[in-house]
């Protein structure tokens, strides 16, 4: 059972994938997000980092599709997406096995110099790929950068991802991952 906060965040997650407005998400929508992230960072799909993104996004889709596909049409409706995310990652055991590696792969993509931190420019590039407006991205960075250092550690970002996609705490800073909740 999800809270109203979790439902709002799940709706946002669905909208980030359903960019063609079809009202469903398919495997190609996740492939599209992965491709946009690779292009955002100029990363090759056949580099080690690029292949990691593709593999982990595929695992994400497989985990979601395995939970529900009531219509068996290879597409997830908003309700099926909510059920799948809840069963697999919010209430279920697969966040650490499946979702966290995908989040980590994205954060490592953003960490272009491999020093363990992500600057504002890289954060904005990733947000642009997700379809976040520049204002929302700036607000998100400001909230997540709790020590005002001007950078976010990869670990901080992965933790924020967990809060956003699974957490039900209204005051959790991760709720601001994509801007004002």
């Amino acid at each position: 059972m999800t809270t109203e906060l979790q439902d709002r965040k799940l709706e946002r997650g669905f909208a980030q994938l359903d960019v063609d407005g079809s009202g469903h998400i398919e495997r190609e929508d996740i492939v599209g997000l992965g491709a946009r992230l690779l292009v955002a960072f100029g990363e090759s799909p056949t580099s080690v980092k690029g292949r990691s993104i593709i593999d982990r996004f595929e695992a994400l889709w497989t985990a979601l599709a395995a939970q529900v596909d009531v219509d068996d049409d290879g597409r997830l409706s908003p309700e099926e997406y909510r059920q799948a995310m809840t069963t697999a990652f919010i209430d279920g055991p697969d966040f650490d096995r499946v979702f966290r590696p995908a989040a980590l792969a994205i954060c490592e993509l953003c960490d272009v110099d491999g020093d363990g931190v992500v600057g504002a420019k890289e954060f904005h590039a990733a947000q642009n790929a997700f379809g976040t407006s520049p204002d929302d991205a700036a607000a998100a960075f400001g909230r997540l950068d709790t020590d005002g250092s001007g950078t976010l550690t990869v670990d901080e970002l992965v933790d924020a991802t967990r809060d956003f996609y699974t957490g039900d705490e209204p005051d959790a800073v991760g709720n601001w991952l994509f801007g004002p909740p």
Partner: protein
Amino acid sequence: MTALALGMPETSTVDRSLLVRLSSRLPAIAAPCRVRPDVDRLGRDTMDWAVDAGLVYDERTATRLRRIRPEQLAARAFADFKYDDALLAAQWFAWTMLFDDELDEGARGRVPEAVDAVYADVIAALHGSATADREVSPIASAASGLWVRTIPRAGPAWPRRFIAELLKHYSACRGAAADRRIGRMPGVVEYREARSADIGIFLVNLIEPLVRAEVPQALFDSEPWQVLRASTADVVAWCNDIASLPKELASEDVHNYVRVIAHAEGIALPEAAEWLFERIVERIGDMFGAGRALDGELRRLGLDQRTARGVSKVACILLGTARGQLEWLLAASRYRPVP
């Protein structure tokens, strides 16, 4: 004149060496391609299609298609897309290579007028203007069938772009036939320009309808996108020329970049092959340089998310070609001597 007689390694060694040397030198192609788990089914369905289309009609033509292994290329380029997308891709790859063979090999490969006739049939079939009183060749009929299935997936600008690239292929193939007729070795610049057309750069255009995306004209015309397309074609062509050198030596076909360079520079074939290897390294660098410039271009053009993600899928398939076609060369036996 054989490759072995000239101190060149056998083809399978060359294919493996290309993959190992390039992937160890270039982090951008260090990781293996994803391959569809249903690749064998893709191969069987492509063969069945070729039989139905009249492109395969005896053991010789079946063996030819088996040696091409178009499904190995499609299974990598379209690893994460629907089966029907990958199947259409495999069929287009099969058609293109069988079409190339029809244009390049045997007596037809030395007769420009024969190239004209083959192309006239194909273009007429694509335009739907083949007349009822004239028998349509299997290669033209197959092209028409593929075209009819592809058009509904494509944007409005796509057919014009595809035909324009196909006509460049025609021009290059005709020029090669004219050269073969008189035994003329093309010059280096001339060869390089023609080769990027006759490798089948029109195949690059197929990616858009196969993934149901359309590259907006402003992006298509941009420098990063043009460099990405051109460098992809060059990398495929030049790797192909290294792999196919023994075959072209055996058939005394001078249309091979290694042979053209060796002749122009007065150097031995192994040295020319090594020179071409270094050019391939540079050109792969150009591909990925263009890939890195794309994000800026997408943002400059203010593309909406749907369009940006669609062109990103196309870009990633293009960028994956550098590794994908090396793995295909190893998996296929197209350029190896027939046992």
